[in-house]
């Protein structure tokens, strides 16, 4: 297990390094730069050049990369060219919206997809199972934006229960307002992600139903449902842990869209704004943090998976 962990850790670090190079280079391919944006549409080439120099954009790429990575290794993700604020600070501030949003969304997705997925598999061929299956299929195909709009129309505009957009200016010092602001966005992501997860849980359960150990347990006198619950579900759980890593990435992408729709000051909305402002040091810091987060979740999921599955422990 220790050897496995070390190998996996080495792979994680390698992944982070490759990601940093890719992020840095892809951003440099984007046309346009921040100096031009600062100067605007009534500027002269001299004005742009002078701003470019002032911001250090005229330095060679290798020097810029080394500068950035050197900072990252010291725990400094960089500084915004536009506002001079530290990327780490900005991320920490915006994470107060995005992390709770992601956690809410994931919880919602799990809470309704796990039981319903299992039920839909166990009741396969019967009315409830078919309804769940068709319903989840339809929900998974719904664009996140549309789902969000519908929820806003019903719960914010029509019923007036929840805010239509925005996050309280007082932030988490007004916890009830903050939670209320996140319910609709989290529901939107949670329902769509959950519908996908439901279908996954359903097929993993169906697979378990057909396994020899479930049939054996049933043959020894357990009912089919009891056999499935006692012997099948731990295996379903394992498969779910594996896709959770992917779900986290899905939720981050969902957050980028949903934060626009609900005007939430989170990491997703900041990222979109920074890309269109070509604030590259900020964008690359944000992307590296997000990539690092997804890679680390994947790393943890792998370790947990291995810890949970006795078969994998034995073979290592």
């Amino acid at each position, binding site marked *: 297990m220790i050897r496995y962990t070390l190998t996996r850790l080495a792979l994680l670090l390698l992944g982070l390094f490759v990601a940093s190079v890719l992020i840095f280079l892809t951003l440099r391919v*984007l*046309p*346009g*730069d921040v100096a*031009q*944006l*600062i*100067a*605007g*549409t*009534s*500027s*002269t*080439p*001299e*004005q*742009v050049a*002078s*701003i470019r120099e*002032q911001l250090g954009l005229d330095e060679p790429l290798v020097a810029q990369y080394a500068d950035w990575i050197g900072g990252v290794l010291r725990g400094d993700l960089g500084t915004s060219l*536009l*506002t*001079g*604020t530290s990327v780490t600070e*900005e991320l920490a501030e*915006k994470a107060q919206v995005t992390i709770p949003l992601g956690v809410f969304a994931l919880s919602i997705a799990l809470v309704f997809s796990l039981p319903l997925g299992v039920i839909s598999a166990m009741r396969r061929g019967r009315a409830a199972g078919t309804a769940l299956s068709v319903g989840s299929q339809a929900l998974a195909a719904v664009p996140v934006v549309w789902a969000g*709009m*519908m929820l*806003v*129309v*019903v719960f*914010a*505009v*029509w*019923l*007036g229960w929840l*805010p*239509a*957009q*925005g*996050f309280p*200016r007082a932030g988490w010092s007004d916890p009830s307002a903050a939670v209320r602001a996140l319910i609709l966005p989290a529901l939107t992501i949670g329902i769509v992600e959950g519908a996908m997860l439901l279908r996954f849980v359903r097929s993993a359960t169906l697979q378990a139903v057909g396994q020899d150990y479930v049939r054996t347990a049933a043959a020894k006198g357990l009912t089919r449902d009891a056999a499935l619950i006692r012997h099948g579900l731990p295996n379903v759980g394992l498969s779910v842990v594996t896709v959770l890593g992917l779900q986290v990435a899905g939720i981050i992408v969902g957050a980028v869209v949903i934060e*626009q*729709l*609900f*005007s*939430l*000051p*989170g990491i997703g*909305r*900041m990222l979109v*704004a920074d*890309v*269109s*402002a*070509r*604030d590259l040091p900020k964008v690359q810091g944000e992307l590296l943090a997000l990539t690092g987060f997804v890679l680390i979740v994947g790393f943890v999921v792998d370790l947990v998976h291995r810890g949970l599955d006795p078969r994998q422990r034995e073979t290592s």
Partner: protein
Amino acid sequence: MLRRTALAASALLVSAALLLSACAGGTTDAPTPTGEPDPDASAVIRLVLEPSNLDIRQTAGAALDQILVDNIYEGLIRRTPEQEIEPALASDWTVSEDGLTYTFDLREGITFHDGQALTPQDVVWSLTTRRDTPAFSDSQRLANVTTITAEGQTITLTLAAPDSTLLWNLTGRAGLIFKEGDTVDYKTAENGTGPFVLDDWRQGDSITFARNDQYWGDTAKVGEVVFAYIPDNQAALNAALAGEVDVVTGFDANLEEQIEADGAYELVLGASTDKGTLAFNQTSGPLADKRVRQAIRQAIDHEGFIEAAASGQTLYGPIPELDPGYEDLSEVAPYDPEAARALLEEAGVEDLTLTLTIPNFYSTTIPQILVSDLNEVGVTLEVDSVDFPTWLTDVYTNHDFDLSYVLHTEARDFENWADPTYYFTYDNAEVQALYKESVAATDPDEAAELLAQAARIVSEDAAADWLFNAASVVAVGTNITGMPSINVNARIDLADLAKSDG
């Protein structure tokens, strides 16, 4: 069959959604317009575009001028929404007969937001620094000023040559007054003299101004103003219907019925200097031929844009009605597809394919109308939707485009037609001479007359097409008074804004 069912189902869902939003009216409490203004009210104004930083000395973009000028920073003089010039930090000013000497009487007892006094030397320093720092925006607008001096409270500007645009320029960024040697970080903080102070900037969300109780003039009528940045119009409508904003700027006039449904808002249309500009790259190729450019202009049904936006007016030349030098030039390029086809034939152009480069934040209705109108006369238009930085590089800097669309919001920006290096690629010596003459004119009426002459030539040369002159579309809560409606993309003066608590 399946497809038809799906269509029917989505139609049902859409109508359900419409029904739901229509029902919304009944549930929200309509404010009583009879309520007394609340001096400590917090007014929330929806804006579209958030500034990337707050450094108005250097960072371009109407998003900064819109909120910072007049409210946070002030100049010696200012412009009213009706584009008149009036006193601000200076109580009065005079211009000498020969147009070479401008004197301003600086008011006494004015303090900056940090408590420091405004001195005549601050004025001299601000204007001089602006003029001499090329990286600052609009620094070239003070290029004609040779000396800036102070004697007592009198500030004197002397010029090398008369400049009919100087007073106007002083009401803009070029004229803003800062504290000499200030150490404030202008990117995220401020130290101005205006009726509001910056209270909070939550990036990606909102900017809050609080009333400056030490203001030298009449203090503001609200306790604070929150600018909520909500890019999407539908989201802004939802926020309005849920009672989360008091004013919605940059709105879509097509949504008038929805937002007025419960009587809590009224849609107001104001004039603006926003010009939907279709630029032609006329340096080479078919667009170098004036007949081809004129054909494109006459192929476009300009009323179509007004109908699609349910607001605005047509514009057939480079100067909008709010600016000096405007005249109705509709006879220069009337909608006439027949004439357009004839012009193309005369120019010997067949199967013409052109590319339109357009920043992706504009409504897709614009390219749709253009594609269909040009298709009518046999011109194929390909649309290249790009993000704004890409547009700046390809079109603005490298002039690598056929057609380009951008909404030019700046007031009095005719100078670009007299600058052959600008991305309009328009080079006409006569226009350049007329513009120069207009700048040098000492009589405003004469200056305007010369601009009008130049503008007519620009339009007759089909140097570009002006798709429309947009309106400022603002939905104002019925408990709000004093919200400006003219040119709000450029300037929102909050001095008279009041909110009753009804």
